[in-house]
C-alpha cells in the first residue's frame, strides 16, 4: 500500500518569545519544525505500512528550499522518501493555490491509497488545505480522524472526532484523511533512521514539472489577498491583586460578579 503524507514546515512556537515592549513575537533565530499535527499523520502512515508489512510512505511538502529539512526529519521517523515542491512561482499562495499545487504533485505519484495530513497547520490554523486537496483530486475525505478501525487496499473504516463524540465512517480508497492528536503517539527518530535521512535523496519538483496552470499557482492563483497587517492592541488593564487568600478571593469575586451572574 502506498501512502502519502503531506507535511508543512512551521516556526517552532516553543522557541518564540513575546517582546514585552511591542507585544509582538521575537522571531530571530526561531527554529523550524514539522507542523505538530503532521507528526501524527506521519506516525499513522508508518504504522499502517508496518501493519501491512509492505508498501511505501512518501512525505510531500511545499515550501522554500530549506523545507527539505522537514522531509529529512520525516524520513528519519520512517518515511521511505521525500518530495519537495518548491518554486519561486509558488510564492504568495493561499490555501486555494496551495491545495491545487499539492494535488498536482500527488497526481505524479501512482496508485496511492491514502493521503494523510494533520488537521491543520500551527502557523496558519486554517484546516483548509486537506479538504482542498481532496476536492482538487476529486476523492473522498474524512477530517479529524482519531482512529482507523479497519483499512485494506480498497476501503477503510475510520472515526471522525466531533464536538459531541465521534462519527464512524466507511470510505472507499484512495481518500484524504486529516488526523487529530488522539490518533497516536508519534515515535522519535531512530539512530538508523537519522543516518538514512542524512543520505536520502530528496526529489524536487518545480511548477513546470507539475504541469501547473500558471493562473492557479502563487499569488495569481490565490483568490485572497492580505490587505493589511497590524499588531493587535495589547491586552490592557492587567492588574495584580495582592493580599491574603481570603482578601484577594473576596476582591476577585466582586470584580467578576457581573460576568459570573451573566
Amino acid at each position, binding site marked *: 500500500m502506498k501512502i502519502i503524507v503531506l507535511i508543512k514546515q512551521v516556526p517552532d*512556537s*516553543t522557541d*518564540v*518569545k*513575546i517582546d514585552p515592549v511591542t*507585544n*509582538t*513575537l521575537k*522571531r*530571530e533565530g526561531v527554529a523550524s519544525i514539522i507542523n*505538530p499535527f503532521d507528526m501524527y499523520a506521519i506516525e499513522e502512515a508508518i504504522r499502517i505500512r508496518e501493519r501491512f508489512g509492505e508498501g511505501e510512505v512518501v512525505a510531500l511538502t511545499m515550501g522554500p528550499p*530549506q523545507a527539505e529539512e522537514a522531509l529529512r526529519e520525516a524520513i528519519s521517523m520512517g518515511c521511505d522518501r521525500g518530495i519537495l515542491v518548491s518554486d*519561486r512561482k509558488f*510564492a*504568495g499562495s493561499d*490555501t*486555494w493555490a496551495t*491545495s491545487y499545487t499539492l494535488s498536482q504533485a500527488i497526481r505524479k505519484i501512482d496508485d496511492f491509497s491514502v493521503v494523510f495530513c494533520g488537521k491543520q497547520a*500551527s*502557523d*496558519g490554523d*486554517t484546516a*483548509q488545505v486537506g*479538504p*482542498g486537496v481532496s*476536492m482538487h483530486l476529486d476523492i*473522498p475525505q*474524512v*477530517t479529524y480522524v482519531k482512529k482507523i478501525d479497519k483499512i485494506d487496499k480498497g476501503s477503510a473504516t475510520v472515526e471522525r472526532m466531533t*464536538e*459531541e*463524540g*465521534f*462519527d*464512524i465512517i*466507511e*470510505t*472507499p480508497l484512495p481518500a484524504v484523511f486529516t488526523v487529530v*492528536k488522539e490518533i497516536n503517539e508519534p515515535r522519535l527518530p531512530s539512530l538508523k533512521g537519522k543516518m538514512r535521512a542524512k543520505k536520502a535523496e530528496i526529489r524536487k519538483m518545480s511548477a513546470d514539472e507539475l504541469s501547473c496552470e*500558471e493562473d492557479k499557482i502563487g499569488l495569481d492563483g490565490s*483568490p*485572497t*489577498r*492580505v*490587505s*493589511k*497587517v*497590524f*499588531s493587535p492592541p495589547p491586552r490592557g488593564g*492587567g*492588574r*495584580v*491583586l495582592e493580599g491574603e487568600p481570603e482578601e*484577594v*478571593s*473576596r476582591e*476577585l*469575586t466582586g470584580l467578576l460578579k457581573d460576568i*459570573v451572574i*451573566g
Partner: protein
Amino acid sequence: MPDPIKVINDKCVGCTLCVKVCPFGAIEMADKKAVIDLTKCTLCGACVKECKFEAIVMAEKENKKPVSDFSMYKDVWVFAEQKKGSVQSIAYELLGKGRELADKLGVDLCAVLLGDNVKAQTEELIHRGADKVYLVESPKLKAYQDDPYTKVLTELIRKHKPEIVLCGATVIGRSLISRVAVTLRAGLTADCTGLDIDEKEKILLQTRPAFGGNIMATIITPDSRPQMSTVRHKVFKEAEPDTSRKGEVIEESFPDDTYSSRSRLVDIVEEIEETVNLAEADIIVSGGRGLGGPENFEMLKELALTLNGAVGASRAAVDADWIPYSHQVGQTGKTVCPKLYIACGISGQIQHLIGMKSSDVIVAINKDPEAPIFSVATYGIVGDLFKIIPQLTKHFKETLGK
C-alpha cells in the same frame, strides 16, 4: 520571472522601518539597504505600505484579469449548521454579524438549511434575522456527510450567487466549506475575528489572527465571488430572536445523484460524559502543572461547577495523565474564547496562550510572579492556589446564593 517583490536600492535610505514592520522576519539590513529574504517573505505587502520612500515594490500581477463584473452577486448567506435536526447556536451568531453586513450592503440576509424534516427550524432562522431561508430536505441530508453537502451547497451558490457566504469554523463547517470554495474557485478566510464592509469598494474585510494571534491580518477577495469566511464559536454575539420578523422560505431540490455519497456514515457516537465542549463554555477554569497531581483537579471541578463552567487544562497536565486530552486548551488542544478564563497553576507557555488569549477576561493564579501567564491576565494573583481556589469557590457560592 521577475522577483515578486524587490527593494529599489536608489530609493532605500536604510531607515529600517520595513524590518520592524515585517511580520515574518524576512527583511534584514545589508550595507544600510533593506534586503528581502524571499524564502521567508509571504508577499503580504506590509513593508510596501510602511516604506515612506516607495523603495519596495511588488510585481504587478502578470496576467491582469479584466475587471470582473460582480453585479450579479448579491446577498449575504449564512450556512445554518444543524445536528439531529436542530440548528446550532453558531448559526445564530453568524446571523447576528450577517445582518450587519447585509444592512451595510443594502442586500438580503439568507440562511441555508440542509437536513431532513427540518422545515420547522426555518421560523427561528427568520426570527434571528434571515430575510430568506433556502431549504433543501432529503433523508440523505439528515446528518452531515461531505459529498452531498458539498454538492448541494455548491449548486445553491452557483444558482443564486451570493456575494458573501459565512460558515462556522466547526468540525462540519471546516470540513465542508473548503471543498465548496475550491470547487467555486472562491477565496476563503478561516477563523475571522472581525468582519466588515469596505464602504467604498463594497467588499468584505476579513480580519483574523495570523501566527498564533500575535499579528492581525485583514484579508480581502477582490477578484472572485462569493467571498467566504469561517468564524469560530463565540466570536460574534447571537442575534436576538424577534418573533415579529417575517421572511420567505425557498425550498429547493436536486437530482438524486447530487445527494449521493462515496463514503458512508455508519454511526454517530456521543460521548457526553467524556467530551467537554470547551468551545461552547462561557466560563473555563483551567489547571496546569502547578496543581501537582490529578486529585487536585477536584478542587477546580468544584469551582467550575459553582460557576457553571467547564474544566480546562494545559498540555503539561494532560501529558502527565492528570486529566483527559479533551480538556486540553492550547495549540495542540482546543482554542477557546470564553467570557472568563481562570488559569490556575499554568505558567503560560506560548502554545497555551495561543489557545486562550482571546478570552474576554483572564484571571491568572500562580505562585511564580514571573510566569508568562501574567502578561495576558486581566487580573493576576501571585500566591498559593491551594489556599486561594477554595476561598474563591466559597465566595462565589455566597455571591450566587448556592
